[in-house]
């Protein structure tokens, strides 16, 4: 078998990659100093993939929340409780469904081979019938209601619906109490067969392990039925138009401070390569909104906000967006401050000393991110579910150039009016 080794000189790290005959990609990230080992079994299928083509281009539409429902069903094992099987090894298992992927993962100290065997065994088979579907509906209903009781979660949903017109990121990953009622065993099985194929999955193992042995182990643990599942459905790709959907919307909740989420959408292609673009935007956002920013200082000193601004950027193929949020009872004043700040940076540029300071900060952050294998494993896996390399991304932060960052910032905010504001107000403000 052909095993590639990918090295990153800056970080002094490496990993190994192999493609098995079945099409399954196996990645081993050796980390000597850590006691725990982590295995992530990832499927490129998530909350947004509710429409796809199977067979001879037959379009299938599934109810919202089905990928997440399937994740719960995969845990159902005919013989025994999946959690127990791992606990017997002193291991723990969990899974999550994001917009783009479903990931099953376990961590283990003493018996990594056994844990990987158990992980692969339950994900490669699906035990499902109408009864198990009915039973899981009750559990998932409680999960959805738990999220719905979190006002900040509802606010973020509100923003995504305001920002986007038709992209499936508008939908909740877990679906709604109504949408999941349309799920049945047949539909779940269709999705399983369509996406849980070797070519659409990755196995990633982190820790003090031998790469060759692990790759051979994963190879040997594939079932015949799994290896023969060689037709992956084709996902419908969505394009999102430039204008936002709703400029401003208000919801109410049982909170003690009002809150806002402000989103900026950008659908033009990225400038340069993905890693550099991402690093440039994040560095700029840190300078504009971060702990050490003039904006935070001003907002804090005027008593407009009490905690730091939260900010995030997502960069997809045909869609990027930035979300900025904070708790405040002075939403209009904060909003004005944010817009004035962005305008001022566009007009006057950034202070080169601030830029150098943030770069030193990045160097330290790289060191500390290498401290926790748990963090490395989560981030590395997350990047892989988007077909990106975590180590290259980290290195890109070190190499951000001032001029490029300024250019990217101005490019992203060229149409500042194309933003959406979602507001969460205290219940007592309801008229």
């Amino acid at each position: 078998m052909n095993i590639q080794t990918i090295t990153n000189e800056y970080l002094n790290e490496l990993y190994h990659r192999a493609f098995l005959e079945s099409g399954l990609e196996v990645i081993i990230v050796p980390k000597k100093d850590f006691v725990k080992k982590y295995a992530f079994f990832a499927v490129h299928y998530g909350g947004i993939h509710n429409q796809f083509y199977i067979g001879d281009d037959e379009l299938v539409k599934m109810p919202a929340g089905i990928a997440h429902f399937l994740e719960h069903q995969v845990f159902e094992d005919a013989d025994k409780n999946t959690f127990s099987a791992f606990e017997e090894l002193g291991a723990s298992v969990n899974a999550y469904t994001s917009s783009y992927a479903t990931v099953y993962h376990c961590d283990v100290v003493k018996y990594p081979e056994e844990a990987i065997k158990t992980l692969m065994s339950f994900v490669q088979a699906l035990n499902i019938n109408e009864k198990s579907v009915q039973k899981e509906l009750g559990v998932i209903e409680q999960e959805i209601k738990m999220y719905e009781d979190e006002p900040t979660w509802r606010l973020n949903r509100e923003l995504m619906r305001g920002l986007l017109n038709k992209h499936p990121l508008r939908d909740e990953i877990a679906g709604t109490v109504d949408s999941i009622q349309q799920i049945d065993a047949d539909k779940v099985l269709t999705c399983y067969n369509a996406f849980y194929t070797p070519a659409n999955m990755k196995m990633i193992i982190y820790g003090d392990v031998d790469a060759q042995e692990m790759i051979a182990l994963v190879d040997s643990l594939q079932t015949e039925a799994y290896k023969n599942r060689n037709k992956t459905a084709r996902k419908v790709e969505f394009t999102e138009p430039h204008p936002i959907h709703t400029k401003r919307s208000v919801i109410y909740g049982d909170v003690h401070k009002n809150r806002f989420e402000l989103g900026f959408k950008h659908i033009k292609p990225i400038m340069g390569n993905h890693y550099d673009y991402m690093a440039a935007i994040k560095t700029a956002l840190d300078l504009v909104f971060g702990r050490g920013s003039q904006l935070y200082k001003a907002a804090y000193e005027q008593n407009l906000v009490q905690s730091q601004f939260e900010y995030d950027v997502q960069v997809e193929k045909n869609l990027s967006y930035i979300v900025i949020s904070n708790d405040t009872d002075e939403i209009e004043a904060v909003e004005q401050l944010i817009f004035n700040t962005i305008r001022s940076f566009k007009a006057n540029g950034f202070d080169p000393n601030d830029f150098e300071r943030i770069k030193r900060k990045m160097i330290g952050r790289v060191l500390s991110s290498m401290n926790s294998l748990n963090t490395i494993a989560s981030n590395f896996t997350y990047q892989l579910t988007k077909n990106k390399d975590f180590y290259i991304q980290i290195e890109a932060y070190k190499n951000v150039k001032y001029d490029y960052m300024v250019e990217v910032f101005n490019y992203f905010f060229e149409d500042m009016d194309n933003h959406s504001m979602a507001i969460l107000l205290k219940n007592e403000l309801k008229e």
Partner: protein
Amino acid sequence: MIKGTMKVKLTEGVTLHIIQSEKFKTILAGIYFKRPLLPVEASYNALLSRIMDHATKTLPSLRAINNELEYLYGSVIVVDTHKYGNNQTIQFKMSFPNEKYLDEVDFYEKPLKILTDIFFDPLIEQGGFKQEIFDQAQATLISEIEMRKDDKMDWAISNCLETMFQDEPYKIHELGTVEWVKAITPQSLYEHLQFLLKEAEIDIIINGDVDDESIVPIVKKWFRLERTSYTPVPRTSNKKEVKAVKYHEEKMQVTQGRLVMGYHYEIEYDDPRYVALFLASAVLGGGGGSKLFIRVREKESLCYTIFARSDKFKSVMLIYAGIDPDNYDKTLALIKEEVKLLQEGDFTEADLAKAKEVIIASFLSISDYQNSFINYYYAQVQFGLPMDIEKKIESIENATKSEVIAASKLLQLDTIAFVTKED
């Protein structure tokens, strides 16, 4: 993975602990001030924890401190207050890169100066913290206390503990109350800081790839405190009389009900039976393979979240479940039945072995995380126990089923708290 630990007394009531571990690329320094948990003082300690990293004499604003931290390769300072049983701590933690990876000499001087300046040399005007900085910190803390209600799980747990310990200081939340916070002035808060520096029990714990010879002199230089006496915090008992089961209900705007059951047990962390008690709570509600998870979630589909956990500092076990409010009676009856079955020994050797494996793995991996590592170490210091992970694992391995049954019989239901929807 641990090269060694060492302990140095710096002055009365101040102990420096160095734990060397090679695998981390950063140094983590934690300074712990310990006090008994008391009404009013709780809010003083909380407010100090919210103001102290906001200005020093040399870095006179939040932005000045944040910019300096960024310049020191993204060093991070976190100040917070925590309740450990009947005591309260203020914890100052700072993480900074190991100088091995930087092109700088004597780097540690800089972060340690900031970390100690925040309490030895804060920005003071007219005998108190600077008014604007004080006002912001006070407002922040008040809204934090008000926002506690927004996390329904935490709120239901607080309701349970407050009812359970209604006649004890333990019912005090580590942030205190809005009234207490409002009564504090910049001057009285500064006086409290002086009081802590004189009287608090202080531990400094440093973890990372450092050697004592280089780090101890730097800590000594910057931790500039000399005292001839202090107020030790005595260990208090967790003894408690459990009478009729108390019930607390609160109606809130929720769609999901939050059920919390508080159990008391008559032994403490350093009792040899504690290991068996800890295992009993793991068999009952430790994870996805536990009795409660399998019965209440997997068989009956009544909830998404359910767990049992034990607080070693207060001899309390809590069971939590997020359920449909209409299923309250059914869920409560099922949980009570599972506790009874546990006490009757209705679990297998395999159930116990499973719980042991999980707990052993978590002990083995404590050293993978720098922060949990120093927190575990500090907890051991609280009980006067050594860093004894191997011994601990041995005692877990040796615990028998009959010991676990005997320990589970110590569980006494004291309080049920329920956060439910409005009518």
